[in-house]
């Protein structure tokens, strides 16, 4: 049974279940994510600029929401400055949202050595995600709190300036649902919102959950998840100059030097199968205090990478993978590489 998602509000719609309060922002009576529930029917979204169409309330004028951007809101942001677009890839609970929430917090708190904060169109979107992550920190058991598939087409935005040369950069981060990514690798299901985001992305960081990769019981699965994604990417419609990289999170979970081994295995798989070695970043956004690891380790270097906008040249050779690679072929490929 899907757990109700508390990351985003309930979408507009109707429910045929008499006892259900989901349309009043209550929980689904069946315990489902509304979009998965057969009793819930979505109201089709309207097109157009949401600000222009927002009704006046109490005579007040609407302002840009400050929440994660919907596709129709992107053009306003993208028209102001050249913007580097990132679509982080990783399964459910890989830590993508927390990673970028912490990155934003460190930036706005003036705690990144290389970067200063220069504004954002989605401050409330970041604040909301930080709030939910903070609430999870106070609970004894992990909760869902993951990015709903409903918000899979949202993006977070910020501007930053490099201290050394004062250069201004605009960054867009797609808030991708891990479920969409898991479905892509498990069954080849290409969720349109994910496919659309990938088609415009300059950067495709493959996020590896360091907690899984550090634990012996789950290490091979973590590596396999990353390699599966690498194999799948050539089958998708990507920019010729899209840059793939590896981001290993929760570095504090590793013993000395062992994180390098995990990364090398993923890079080796990419090199053998796709003929390129992705750049890798090791980060510890929220390390355990007893680990001695500096909070935000690696985020500065990661941001250095993600602000770059490729100039139209392919940054890596075209991977030598046959097209139409489906999940069955992936499993065979994996079994053969062991």
């Amino acid at each position: 049974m899907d757990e109700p998602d508390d990351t985003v509000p309930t979408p507009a719609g109707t429910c045929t279940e008499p006892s259900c309060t989901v349309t009043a922002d209550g929980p689904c009576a069946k315990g489902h994510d509304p979009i998965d529930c057969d009793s819930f029917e979505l109201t089709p979204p309207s097109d157009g600029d949401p600000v222009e169409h927002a009704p006046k309330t109490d005579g007040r004028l609407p302002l840009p929401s400050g929440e994660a951007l919907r596709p129709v809101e992107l053009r306003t942001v993208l028209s102001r400055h050249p913007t580097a677009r990132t679509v982080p890839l990783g399964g459910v609970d890989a830590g993508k949202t927390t990673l970028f929430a912490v990155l934003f917090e460190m930036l706005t708190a003036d705690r990144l050595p290389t970067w200063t904060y220069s504004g954002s169109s989605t401050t409330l979107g970041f604040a909301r995600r930080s709030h939910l992550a903070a609430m999870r920190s106070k609970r004894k058991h992990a909760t869902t709190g993951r990015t709903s598939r409903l918000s899979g087409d949202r993006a977070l935005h910020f501007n930053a300036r490099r201290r050394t040369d004062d250069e201004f950069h605009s960054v867009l981060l797609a808030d991708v649902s891990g479920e969409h990514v898991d479905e892509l690798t498990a069954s080849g299901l290409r969720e349109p919102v994910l496919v659309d985001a990938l088609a415009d992305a300059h950067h495709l960081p493959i996020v590896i959950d360091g907690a899984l990769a550090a634990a012996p019981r789950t290490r091979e699965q973590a590596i396999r998840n990353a390699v599966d994604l690498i194999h799948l990417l050539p089958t998708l419609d990507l920019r010729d100059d899209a840059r793939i990289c590896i981001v290993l999170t929760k570095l504090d979970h590793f013993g000395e030097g062992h994180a390098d081994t995990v990364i090398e295995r993923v890079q080796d798989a990419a090199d053998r199968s796709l003929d390129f070695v992705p750049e890798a970043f090791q980060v510890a956004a929220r390390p355990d205090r007893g680990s001695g690891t500096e909070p935000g380790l690696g985020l500065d270097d990661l941001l250095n990478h993600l602000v770059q906008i490729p100039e139209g040249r392919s940054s890596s050779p075209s991977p030598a993978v046959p097209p139409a690679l489906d999940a069955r072929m992936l499993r065979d490929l994996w079994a053969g590489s062991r």
Partner: protein
Amino acid sequence: MSGTRIAMVGLPNAGKTTYVAAFWATARATPRPDRHTIVSFPDDPTYLQATADAWFAGRPVDRNRSESIQPIVLSLRRKGRADLKLAIPDLSGESFRDAAADRRILPEVAEVVTECSLVLFFVSAATATTPVSLVDLPPEVEEENEDGDGEDPNGDHQGVGDEEDSDEQHQDDTEHSDQEDDDEQASDQEDHEAADDPAHSSEEFDSKALETDILNAELLQLIAELRDDLDAYPPVLVVVSAWDTVSDLGVTPYEWLRTNQPMFAQVVAEHGRSAAVEVMGISAQGGDYSVDPDITTVRPEERPVVVTKEATHQDIGLPFVWFEDLAGSEPDG
């Protein structure tokens, strides 16, 4: 005379009304040649007089809590400068908080901020709040292993190829457990502190409960965005009010802002690339009335304290002097 529209911007309790009260009270007092004095009373001085009287008597000034805009027009004179006419509507802090948090703005407030020639942005040193970062919160408590095999969640923290180091790992786990007890006590305390943090005190995300650092940063961004033309970004003077509460720190107002409102300070710096910005620390009251009730015996023009990066002053009209200098006000004679 020149008519200059000034927008006093700030969240509730930021010190906007107290500043106006102090300025009016000092301007209407026996004029000093080097300070602003009034040329004439406003058409309706009721609001100004009431707030100034409260300030004069050492009582906290009632702030504007309503959506109504208290119009304030001042005709001022200062030796060596052209006469100045200032329109400084007193807007409620709630209207600005709603703009930043609810993303709705009263048309009259939007008009003030889009047509002003100067923004006086108030941040109270006494009530300013900064977000507690996720990295500074206690770590998540790991979900208990449902298989009940007794594995220590921290036992999974083994490096690749570490199997041969299991004995050493066991000792590390023991040491880690002792440290965990200490951390748990510390984290309980911090949980209580985090619970007191209004932005984290309930499960529901409430944008109105966000820290002032975030709301102030948003507010300044929104003001800039409401101005259609990039060239029309107004100069911004940040007033760190209640400066007496932090004056012992020995830092400049800008240094205080960078440390205590880092997100807002960075947005101010970014705004400074398009328009003039300045930061001043101001104690309009001159002190804490509950601690120093005799402050009312001090001459009005000697009560306020204004701190710039260069020096400490008593001239509460310095923000307007700064603005006039920007505009290149030509002195008389």
